[in-house]
């Protein structure tokens, strides 16, 4: 017996709602939305160091030597919140470092790596580029990113060996 497939033309209730009289133009809507997002900047940017501290707390809980997959997963979720902030408010360096962190952690979860050191190095790098930290040069940032890449490469090689 063949499988059934019913195709229904459905009323677009959201469209009906938005077609009602009144409202604002696209330009005004975007301008208002952007201003509203900016109104959160001070509060949300101030929260970034606390988010990094939360990651550090997961890593150092109980003075551990190894970290579990569940904890790495929790760190990924938390790091996602930092990416929301760094991406929204334009902290490109922090964004890059947190994405490197996420790449590392996803690889660790996938390969069952439980070592604390590579995670710790990435968290220290986050601190260096967090808003409010001392300004560092482009060259220093490039050097730091190269260092993070070599840490990642080391664990990738270990996995492949």
């Amino acid at each position: 017996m063949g499988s059934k497939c019913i195709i229904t033309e459905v009323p677009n209730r959201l469209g009906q709602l938005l077609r009602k009289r009144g409202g604002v133009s696209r330009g005004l809507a975007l301008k208002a939305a952007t201003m509203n997002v900016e109104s959160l900047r001070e509060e949300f940017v101030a929260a970034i160091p606390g988010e990094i501290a939360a990651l550090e707390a997961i890593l150092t809980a109980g003075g551990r030597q190894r970290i579990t997959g569940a904890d790495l997963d929790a760190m990924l979720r938390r790091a996602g919140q930092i990416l929301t902030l760094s991406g929204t408010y334009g902290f490109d360096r922090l964004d890059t470092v947190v994405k490197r962190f996420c790449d590392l952690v996803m690889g660790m979860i996938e390969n069952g790596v439980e070592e604390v050191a590579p995670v710790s190095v990435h968290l220290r790098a986050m601190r260096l580029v967090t808003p409010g930290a001392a300004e560092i040069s482009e060259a220093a940032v490039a050097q730091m990113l190269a260092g993070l890449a070599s840490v990642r490469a080391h664990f990738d090689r270990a996995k492949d060996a």
Partner: protein
Amino acid sequence: MVDHDRFSTGIVSQILRGFGLSNHIIIGTGKEAKKLLAGGRFHLLISESLLPDMKLADLVRWIRRHTDTKIRYMPVVVLTGYTQFSRVAHARDAGVSSVVRKPVSPTTLFDHVLYAARTERPFIDADDFAGPDRRFRPHDAAAGLNRRTSDHAADDLSLPPSPAAP
């Protein structure tokens, strides 16, 4: 909006307010979403792809198989983080309307909401899929002979126009 990331919900909430969509509810779990949807009247669901208590695909399947058509046909926009972006195929297969990468900007969200509002996509109800027709480009539904793009080099293969600004 379903998301446990307080920063994301704060930002999206302010974006929606800017659009004049002040009447929205923010919750953190799929279970709360089901309860609210079943008891309320909503026009749009925006959900993070990673829910703390259930798989997004399960929530979307619940919506797409619901007996109340106001729930079943509701547009579902999924926000996905950096670590989840490559893993949203299951959500698409479950019947979401569109997927947006976080962090979401006002322009991106505006375009996706407007697209959901202005696009008449038929609803497909099959044994293994229920949701908006994913072949939303007119040339996707190629039929018959000569289906390859190279057979129609001179044809207009452009995408449908973006929703016009109001």
